[in-house]
């Protein structure tokens, strides 16, 4: 058969495309569950980090720790009400899309942790933009809904050695013990560049030398992300 006839080329190309497409779809379906599990595992690891638990070991270890410490999750809407039937984990996986919606249509996820002493904490996912690309993270609040117990941050492409330092645990640790309310007013925790040797006050932390823009962006991300939870937080505080 003539290998350069048009019929042969068309048949050959079609057969090739069909075989490749079938094989790839099969491979993709066969491996999808495992890939999905990896992505969820990574989010679980990050959530645990925000309450100060560094998960060592493989996926099973992370799953076990997550099952032990994270006791619940729910989603809140812009009126401060809990959304019935929302899947917080699914919202978390699509956080970029959630924050692309107008503020009053967002359903925002919250995770609840309880440690060995029965102390409950609330973990709020954060989403914002840094100097070069998206940054995200988790802020854990004590059960009084105003004291920060811990924070972790992640980034996509901040400057290595400068802005990228936000992902280091020493920067997240600076937020522990800060409060987001002053005399009942929401003030968030801001990132500031200060002079002098006075330690920062209860509503601010120090920026990173050389990475101020990214560090300021973290402060902005915390304020803007918490804004969406405020109606819910206010309701919780009134109920106390």
């Amino acid at each position, binding site marked *: 058969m003539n*290998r350069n006839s048009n019929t042969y*080329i068309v048949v050959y190309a079609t057969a090739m495309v069909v075989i490749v497409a079938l094989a*790839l779809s099969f*491979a*993709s379906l066969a491996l999808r569950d*495992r890939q999905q599990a990896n992505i969820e595992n990574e989010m679980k690891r990050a959530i645990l980090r925000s309450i100060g638990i560094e998960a060592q070991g493989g996926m099973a270890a992370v799953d076990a720790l997550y099952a032990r410490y994270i006791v619940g999750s729910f989603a809140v809407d812009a009126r401060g009400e809990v959304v019935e039937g929302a899947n917080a984990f699914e919202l978390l996986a699509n956080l970029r899309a959630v924050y692309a919606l107008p503020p009053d249509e967002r359903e925002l996820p919250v995770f609840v942790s309880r440690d060995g002493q029965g102390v409950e904490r609330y973990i709020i996912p954060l989403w914002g933009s840094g100097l070069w690309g998206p940054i995200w993270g988790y802020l854990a609040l004590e059960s009084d809904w105003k004291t920060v117990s811990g924070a972790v941050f992640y980034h996509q492409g901040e400057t290595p050695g400068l802005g990228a330092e936000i992902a280091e645990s020493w920067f997240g640790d600076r937020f522990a013990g800060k409060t987001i309310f002053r005399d009942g007013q929401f003030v968030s925790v801001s990132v500031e560049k200060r002079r002098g040797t006075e330690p920062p006050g209860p509503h601010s932390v120090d920026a990173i030398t050389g990475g101020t823009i990214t560090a300021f962006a973290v402060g902005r991300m915390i304020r803007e992300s918490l804004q969406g939870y405020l109606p819910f937080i206010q309701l919780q505080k009134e109920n106390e």
Partner: protein
Amino acid sequence: MNREREPIFSAKNMRLLLGPLNRDNPVAVQILGICSVLAVTAKLRPAFVMAVSVVAVAALASLIMSALRKTIPSRIRIIVQLVVIAFLVIIVDQILKAYVYEVSKQLSVFVGLIITNCIIMGRVEAFALGNKPWPSLLDGLGNGLGYGVILIVVGFFRELLGAGELWGRQVIPDSFYEAGYMNNGLMLLPPMALIIVGVIIWIQRSFNKDVVDK
């Protein structure tokens, strides 16, 4: 693969496999396929995973293209090559995402760039399309390995000198640091990968005088 006519590991076949490791090294001598993949050599582990991926894709692409060589219409030859290579790379990418997720995140887009790695395309075009499957497999394997060796050597020196670690474990004893030794952070940054490759080429060519440029 016919034993009577030619032993599987005949001298000629061994040369196909081992030549690229030294004398015909694709990176150092042929200057092929440097492309992007050096970007993953800051640490030994991702460099190793990348090397294994490239070896697998190079060997399988050569094998498949050689097996198909008599059926491929020459007018769509390049497209067929691209599809076969892209197919193999997608499979590798999916497997990495499923089984070594952490490393696959470090490799990020660079797995996809294996498709555009000149070595694979170059070997298929120059060797596999004109030879039997078994020698082609060895040729692909050899070139993949020759490339992988460079990746691993670069990764070894960058991690050792840049972070004092190998495979994520500290190997430089604390007493060195106490005596004033410092990690060279510059080794972890991209330019040093190029300089290390330059030095490898220099050393390699000092021993193989016949490949020196005029």
